[in-house]
């Protein structure tokens, strides 16, 4: 091995306790633990964040509405003859076409024998909104930030007000001429 950029992990961020975890992008890391730390550095330079989840990109089963329409038989296909043991899957979906900085968001869990079966179940269980993209992830493949780390991981971003354009006020030439001189400049 001459070089590596490490495997890819998808990152889910929960802004506040009442909100769902939302897919914000990915990081590359050697393992789940480092992926969480990388996710903090890349996606929490500014508030708010309450909790982070990461999962290896290849643990995600993803299917779009267009893919489902292209293969309708897939939806009604009976489960595999000898179903393996079931496990819990986290279900994420994209329900809006509005411009946004987040992608799919967490909607709940299903227990299923395969990712395909998990999507089939999600289609019935979460049929509450038109959905453009589904992601299902085995719960065991997801690492979560520790609530005990929350203060040290996420709160420092609160104090860095200079990361926001509002910290610079309304900059106009006229205002500057009237305003006090800034001795720090």
């Amino acid at each position, binding site marked *: 091995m001459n070089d*590596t*950029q490490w495997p890819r992990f998808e990152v889910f961020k929960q802004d506040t306790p009442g909100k769902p975890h939302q897919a914000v992008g990915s990081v*590359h890391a050697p393992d789940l633990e480092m992926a969480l730390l990388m996710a903090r550095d890349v996606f929490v330079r500014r508030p708010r964040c309450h909790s982070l989840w990461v999962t290896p990109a290849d643990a995600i089963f993803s299917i779009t509405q267009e893919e489902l329409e292209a293969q309708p038989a897939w939806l009604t296909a009976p489960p595999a003859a000898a179903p393996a043991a079931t496990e819990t899957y986290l279900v994420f979906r994209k329900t809006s076409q509005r411009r946004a*900085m987040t992608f799919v968001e967490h909607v709940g869990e299903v227990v299923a024998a395969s990712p395909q079966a998990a999507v089939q179940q999600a289609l019935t269980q979460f049929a509450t909104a038109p959905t453009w993209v589904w992601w299902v992830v085995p719960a065991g493949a997801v690492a979560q930030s520790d609530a005990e780390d929350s203060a040290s991981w996420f709160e420092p971003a609160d104090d860095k007000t*200079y*990361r926001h354009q509002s910290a610079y006020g309304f900059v*106009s030439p006229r205002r500057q001429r009237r305003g006090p001189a800034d001795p720090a*400049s």
Partner: protein
Amino acid sequence: MTTEAEQLAHFEARIARGEKIEPGDWMPAEYRRQLIRMISQHAHSEVVGMLPEGQWITSAPSLRRKMVLIAKVQDEAGHGQYLYHAAETLGATREEMLEALLTGKAKYSSVFNYPTLTWADVAMIGWLVDGAAIKNQTMLAHASYGPYSRAMVRICAEETFHHKQGKEMIVHYATQGTSAQRAMAQDALNRWWWPSLMMFGPHDSASSNSEVLIRWGIKTKTNDELRQEFVDEMAEEFRAINLVIPDPALRYDAATGHWVHGPIDWDEFWRVVRGHGPCNAERLAARRQAHEDGLWVRQAMAGYAAQRVATAD
């Protein structure tokens, strides 16, 4: 059986309805190719863009300015990550994109191949270069490809502070600064004005990709349209603080309501794009050095992770 023509019609209808194309959805090979080209170049620009400003972190004039600059450079690193992610959703790998950058095969914004000679350059980059970038990125936030659009929305939300801190400094130096500070601001404008205009890319007549990018909703405005918006805005701003844009031909055209700029030196633009700008070699050498210096860290961490998996079994 769906023919390619039917798939294309369906794809274009989705874009016309304002739907986002997502990974997994059908897309023309040319759409994928154009996006990988644009997004990876954009990612490289964020990464290389750290270098000209990063040089000034240790020489910032106050602790506050230093914290602001560190935060800004850190943001650019993050923006590179967001964009590499978007390109990866199209099948490009991180390894091949970095390889292309480090071997000089990949392009990035030509503006980062100019040197930062004074502190005012840091301020002028914030106002002019980030200002030009935001014009482009605000448009790209509407892009039809979901992952690119989302990266742009996130970047725009963060980048407004880059623009504002630069503007605050230049306006301050020009209106309340000492004569030396004022001269420094003017000198920075003299050197950064034309490279900033070139950031919008070749004239529409020479831009081979524009038509297809607009047809498929990746871009919604042409290079010249964006450049004109920028010139109109900046001409007024600099006039208000009595800094002189280094373009003797610049004039306001009452008939169209636009500022008309003089000819852009496209020979210089292509020279810099092709690797012969003032700092191309220096920027690439700095990236290569950083990559080589980080190799043992990447390997050690991968080794540690592998070992933990082995002991856990």
